[in-house]
């Protein structure tokens, strides 16, 4: 099997171990007892489905497979809980191959962390597993998993990406010899391996696949949501088809509860549960210390007033819950104006909402007016930033939406901006990525495609609007209400970016995480819908849109302009992009707090923050140049100042060796400086000490 992949050909850190088939090093460590239980359950479940459903399998595993009571229990529980999984089990009978692969791969991916670098660690872990379940079927599982993780052997010594360009990457030979899928694969041949490369791909990360055949050589091109493109060359048409349809089936699972985060168990110790990190009450405590104009309302505690809002909302003190309900009925999706940000410096606030439902006959709502007026100081005026152009806002009236009428909101001045909506953004992303992947070496083509994608224009427009909002608050001393149509996309881009500009706290890692929780997750950005597909989606886009990616791009632009003012670096933003689209963590699942509660994400999945905030991980994301900067940072939004985010869009097309070296050098310079400072400090103390010791001797 040949594979065109990208990525660094990492050096094998360990000599290759013995192939896993046949003899299994079965060491079951006792302290892993808990882990084992989990495994046993999950594994048994898979096995049961397989053996029960497929006569083909039964032949292979008959008699060898112990019917554990655990497995039976778990299975029946599953039957009750998720019909789809049972269905999945049935489905296996029908087309025999595609789906069990995923289930097995889940098991494999389970121990992902154990084997980041060395596949053989991985295999050992699984060996344990095999012992536990005592099923030869799991050996097969191991081999499938190897296929999935694509254990690569890179050709010869070529360690460089320049070596050969295919669809953007190095050419590796994978020593996998694929037999019939039922028997799966033979052991990877390990003789002569001097360089092992692993590639782990979440099924959820797969955006689309393409198949091609030349003779009996099949090629699967896997296009990922993180924009990577991988080409797998598989000899044998049937195998290729099988694999392709498996991938396809596994990457387009409909049910959220079948997503990997529900199967994922962390192999790290969760020190700090990310699910508990950013509860709304905490943020309110900070606010309380600054002003008493606001209160926490529980009006939405059962999510009935606004399904996309969280249960706790910060609203003006003087507005009671009843008024809130009325205001909610006047706003799209019940998204009545709530506090987004309080500017400590001058007490001005930023609120966000959805469009008012004025309709064509100019409906008004006294409570809504009262609600937003309550945020103004006497005699002051505020700004309403409508992220749509006036024309779009006018059109919205016909569908019952609209905008605040001057007459009814005399204390507010409305500003229209032109941030595009989902479909257009999605198209823009597709075009941009197409331009970036264009292999032709023509300058004109590149620039005109880049221009035609309009991506940079969107970045500019969003940044400009955010700057405008920030400017109204900080420079004009006015309060601001931001909304678009639904208040879940462009509105959040603007409010969150404005906070990054205004509030130094948002430029720290913790602060930025809190911002994403507050302004994106809890504010009801429909991540599940928006990130269902990325730039390689073939189908007609439904509600997919790179809204969050655009936000991250804007943050990156500000980061480029203020390289010392952010505690995090570009990697942090890229990581967030990846996890928003495909993740082993539950953080970005669901479309709103309501859905997350229903899915019981906090009980059943691990939070991204639990992982990121561990010191070992955090290290990668720290900006060595960071020095807290308490000022408001005003980015330039001129086209000359806005750059293409190469770290995302050219990530898989360019060699970053030199840039990485430069980054390392930068880190080195700063670390060396710190080291010297410490040395000098300690020497100074030592000297001072010696001096004081000496002084008495010297006094005559």
């Amino acid at each position, binding site marked *: 099997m040949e594979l065109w992949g990208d990525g660094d050909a990492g050096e094998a850190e360990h000599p290759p171990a013995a192939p896993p088939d046949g003899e299994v090093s079965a060491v079951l460590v006792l302290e892993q007892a808990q882990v084992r239980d989990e495994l046993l359950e999950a594994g048994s479940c898979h096995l049961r489905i397989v053996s029960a459903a497929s006569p083909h399998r039964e032949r292979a595993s008959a008699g060898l497979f112990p019917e554990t009571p655990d497995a039976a229990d778990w299975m029946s529980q599953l039957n009750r809980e998720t019909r789809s999984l049972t269905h999945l089990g049935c489905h296996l009978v029908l087309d025999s191959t595609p789906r069990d692969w995923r289930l097995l791969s889940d098991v494999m991916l389970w121990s992902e962390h154990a084997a980041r670098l060395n596949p053989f660690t991985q295999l050992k872990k699984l060996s344990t597993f095999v012992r536990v379940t005592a099923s030869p079927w799991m050996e097969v599982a191991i081999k499938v998993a190897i296929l999935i993780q694509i254990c690569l052997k890179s050709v010869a010594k070529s360690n460089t990406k320049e070596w050969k360009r295919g669809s953007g990457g190095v050419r590796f030979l994978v020593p996998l010899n694929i037999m019939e899928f039922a028997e799966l694969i033979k052991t990877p041949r390990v003789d002569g391996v001097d360089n092992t490369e692993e590639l782990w791909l979440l099924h959820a990360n797969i955006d689309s696949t393409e198949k091609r055949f030349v003779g009996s050589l099949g090629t699967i091109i896997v296009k990922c949501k993180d924009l990577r493109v991988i080409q797998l060359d598989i000899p044998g048409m049937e195998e290729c088809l099988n694999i392709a349809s498996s991938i396809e089936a596994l990457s387009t699972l409909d049910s959220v509860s079948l997503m990997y985060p529900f199967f994922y168990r962390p192999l790290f110790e969760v020190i700090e549960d990310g699910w508990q990190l950013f509860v709304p009450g905490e943020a309110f405590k900070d606010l309380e210390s600054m002003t008493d104009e606001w209160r926490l309302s529980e009006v939405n505690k059962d999510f009935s007033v606004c399904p996309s809002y969280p249960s706790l909302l910060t609203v003006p003190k003087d507005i009671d819950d009843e008024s809130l309900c009325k205001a909610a009925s006047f706003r799209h999706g019940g998204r009545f104006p709530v506090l987004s940000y309080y500017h400590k410096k001058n007490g001005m606030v930023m609120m966000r909402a959805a469009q008012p439902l004025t309709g064509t006959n100019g409906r008004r709502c006294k409570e809504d007016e009262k609600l937003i007026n309550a945020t103004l100081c006497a005699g002051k005026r505020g700004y309403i930033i409508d992220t749509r152009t006036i024309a779009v806002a006018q059109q919205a009236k016909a569908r019952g939406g609209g905008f605040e009428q001057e007459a009814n909101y005399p204390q507010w001045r409305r500003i229209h901006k032109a941030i595009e909506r989902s479909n257009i953004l999605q198209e823009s992303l597709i075009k941009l990525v197409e331009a970036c992947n264009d292999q032709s070496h023509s300058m004109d083509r590149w620039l005109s495609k880049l221009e035609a994608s*309009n991506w940079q224009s969107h970045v500019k427009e969003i940044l400009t609007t955010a700057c405008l909002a920030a400017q109204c608050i900080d420079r004009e001393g006015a309060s601001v209400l931001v909304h678009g149509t639904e208040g879940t996309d462009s509105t959040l881009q603007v409010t969150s970016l404005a906070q990054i500009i205004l509030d130094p706290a948002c430029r720290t890692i913790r602060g930025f995480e809190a911002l994403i929780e507050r302004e994106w997750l809890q504010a009801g950005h429909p991540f599940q819908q928006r990130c269902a597909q990325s730039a390689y989606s073939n189908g007609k886009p439904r509600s997919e849109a790179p809204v969050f990616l655009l936000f991250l791009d804007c943050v990156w632009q500000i980061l480029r302009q203020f*390289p010392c003012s952010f505690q995090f670096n570009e990697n942090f933003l890229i990581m967030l992009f990846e996890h928003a689209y495909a993740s082993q963590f539950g953080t970005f699942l669901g479309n709103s707090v309501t859905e997350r509660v229903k899915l019981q994400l906090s009980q059943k999945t691990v939070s991204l923050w639990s992982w990121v905030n561990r010191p070992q991980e955090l290290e990668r994301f720290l900006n060595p140049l960071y020095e807290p900067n308490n000022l*408001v940072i005003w980015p330039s939004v001129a086209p000359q*100042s806005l750059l293409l985010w190469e770290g995302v869009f050219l990530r898989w097309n360019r060699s970053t060796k030199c840039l990485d070296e430069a980054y390392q050098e930068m880190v080195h310079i700063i670390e060396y400086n710190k080291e010297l400072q410490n040395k000098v400090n300690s020497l100074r103390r030592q000297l001072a000490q010696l001096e004081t010791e*000496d002084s008495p001797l010297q006094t005559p």
Partner: protein
Amino acid sequence: MEHIRMPKVENVRLVDRSSSRRIQVGTLYLTATHIIFVGKGSEDRNELWVLHSLVCNVVKHKSSQSGYPLLIHCKNFQVIQFIIPQESDCHNVYISLSRLSRPEKYEELYCFSFNPNVDKAEREHSWDFLNLKAEYSRMGLPNKLWHVTPINREYRVCDTYPADLFVPKSVTLPVIVGSSKFRSRGRFPTLSYYCKENHATICRSSQPLSGFSARCLEDEQMLQAIMKSNPGSRFMYVVDTRPKLNAMANRAAGKGYENEDNYCNIKFQFIGIENIHVMRNSQQKLIEVSALRSPSMGEFLLGLENSDWLRHIKSTMEAGIFISKAVAEEGVSVLVHCSDGWDRTAQVCSVASVLLDPYYRTIKGLMVLIEKDWVSFGHKFSHRCGHLDGEPKEVSPVIDQFLECVWQLMEQFPCAFEYNEKFLISIHNHVYSCHYGNFICNSQKERKDLCIKEKSHSIWPHLWESKLDFMNPLFKPDQSQNQGLLRPSTAPYCFKYWRRLYNRFDRELHPRQSELDCLMTIKEETQQLEEELALYEQKLAVLDKERAKTLYMQKGVLDSKQALWSLPLDTSLANTPQDYIGGFIGGAPNVFTLQQGERESAELSLFGDKPKSSDADSSDQESGVADFSSHSSGEESLPSEDSVKYPDSDETGPNRA
């Protein structure tokens, strides 16, 4: 002096280009060498100095309420707008400047009046700072195959070539003469770069006068000798940097290119780099794009595309890559020519040299390279930079393109260059400023005739003195990527718009914090710390030895050290924005700070020290505010009550759907 009709105009308004709201009132002076604007206002008296030689053109605009606008475009891409209250004053300034910025004689150029406080010996010494002979011997020349020919000592064979030229030892004088007669302007093939490791060379010449069928035995022998001087190779490349069509057209004029049949063992190759006229127009378009006021993203990108500038940079780079690979990887010698061999040839040879030889990626090395491939080999600086009033069609940004290629390489290889982009920009500025004598005239002979070395100063030692400003903190000479050949990618997205050069004076477009400056500060601090550490260690040793004796002395030193230490090392300069806000283009708030060199002259201290950048405070950083609302409102102002006119579309409004 006789050209100055109007030495001083009061109440002139200087308009900030980024926002027309920022206006300074002050006095405009015209001196024999500079335009000087002195802003009124007691606390920050801003000064703007512009050399006449940097002025590209002066345009009068339609009068406005506040007066008569005068727009000055400079060759370093600065654009200055004055508003002069009186029409007659404006006209006089315009006439004077138009004349002053277009000197007719070399003697009028600033380098002949520039008189820093140095004695004659020092000035002469400044010209010895670079030594091409030393450079050739660094390459390993002369050796048993290559030697200096005395044939052009008097510039008789080729008046645009330097006096000392390297040719294969095997070539006789008649062959050189014969070959030179067969080449445009007598520019016969001669050595530009020699690769010690494999004996491959880059040679350069002008086009052969081959017409449709002419041939020249001597020229053929010449090429043969060059090929033979690279014992390892069996053929050589002849690279014609022109598009094939241009070269063919030249045949009709009795010029052309080498016929592969007539020359033994050559491989002929066209690399379509466009001519100086195309490049001039392209850059003009690029400058227009860069100077657009608040363009949309589309306007900017389309403008960039339509200028074709990056495409030209790419083709130059590709030519350099071809040659460097031939030399380093194939070990094959290359002869490069274009038409006259002083524009594209210079570009391509020097780009190839930068790719090939790490030395040219050091500060000294780049100076030497420019001195060798450009200055000595007769790049027509006077014509190309338009130093004197003359044929505008001779002007072309050929050296700009070379500098930009180097910059593009720096973007791809951040650790490979000892210098940073400030160095390139500084060189660019001085190429055009006529401040120093280096880039005056079109050839070595002209410079000799004009006694440049006696009458003016050399830029190189001056740049060398400011070396610290030009250092790249990330430079790692020992790193693998910096050894030997650089292999840049030529994917279109690798070629970027050089904002620091083209928007050099638009301070608000650049990052408000500079990674570069920050790292420089840290590195400097590290050095101090190293010294301090050494001192402490020494003292500790001494203390240990003779505790009692040294107490008094030690106390003294320690105190003074403590004072130094108490400089905020922890909260060090590194990240407080004040330190790098204006760091790049002159210090804030004095946007108009001159290049360092321009401040040296005694006469420049007329106005005393300019205000330091200390008050570049938070307000400065927050200065990007102005234009965010401009697109929706159509006005360049804050969304304040009086200035924002949003289409307030109630039901009755004009925008009713």
